């Protein structure tokens, strides 16, 4: 379980890095009306990264009593990034797509596909475990 959670949080960090790169990429061409929303999004994605780093630090402690807390915290960060990726970043990423006349498919979808394609089987299992309902995940502890 320690290794599964570690892999999951490392995968989260990679997703955060890619989202941050993409957000930086649209910064200069952003519509003025979206600036405040953009800044909120940058902060929200950064918060997911901070949470994943904190989880990795907590995992390093190797204390059994906090494992359920780290699992829950990993689930929170995963769901939060999922919400950002699938729904809340779409207006920003779509604005770039519209400006550059790119296909309408949200770039966030590309992230998901990219991340899935490069996931190792253990990381995929980790994601499934962390996204699954807690009672099931806790039963596996």
């Amino acid at each position, binding site marked *: 379980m320690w290794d599964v959670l570690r892999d999951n949080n490392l995968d989260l960090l990679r997703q955060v890095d890619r989202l941050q790169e993409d957000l930086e990429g649209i910064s200069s061409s952003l519509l003025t009306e979206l600036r405040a929303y953009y800044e909120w999004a940058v902060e929200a994605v950064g918060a997911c990264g901070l*949470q994943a780093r*904190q989880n990795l630090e*907590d995992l390093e*402690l190797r*204390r059994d*009593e*906090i494992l*359920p*807390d*780290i699992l*829950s*915290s990993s*689930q*929170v960060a995963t*769901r*939060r990034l*999922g*919400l950002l990726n*699938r*729904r809340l970043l779409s207006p920003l990423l779509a604005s770039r797509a519209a400006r550059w006349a790119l296909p309408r498919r949200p770039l966030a979808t590309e992230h998901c596909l990219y991340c899935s394609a490069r996931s190792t089987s253990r990381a995929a299992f980790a994601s499934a475990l962390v*996204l*699954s*309902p*807690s*009672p099931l995940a806790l039963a596996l502890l």
Partner: protein
Amino acid sequence: MSPDWLAVQSFGANQRLLTAINALSIHTKLRLGGVDDPGRSQAAADGRKTLEAFLDRLDTALRQSGEDELGPVLGADPRLRELARSFVAARRDRGRFRSVLFRHSPSEMEQLLRSGKPEDEKLLVECLKELRALVEDHLHSDAAEVLGEI
């Protein structure tokens, strides 16, 4: 507000609540285990405030509607009312929910949050664990609506 955004708002509120529970739970457990955790002191203090505010709202929802019936409460957040209903149901599940929070009341847990005594901190850890279980059960329907079935 559309049901969709109500789900997003409720999802966000429950995520913040879980963040507060987890930070405070880890901080308390580490301190009880003799491990200094200064880097999380602020997050734990913020978590206490978030939890106090939540327990106040839950307590009010329970008292206003009558704990056994939980009928409509004018002006009450419908998702909070659903959570209050789950709370009442959980109270009857003594096998799974037996902490001070479920045996007594949200205000008893608030007292544990303010106490700081080691014996109370142990009881608080149990309350946090069970409250998290309740919120995660409740969150699942919002998560499915917001993120799609996983």
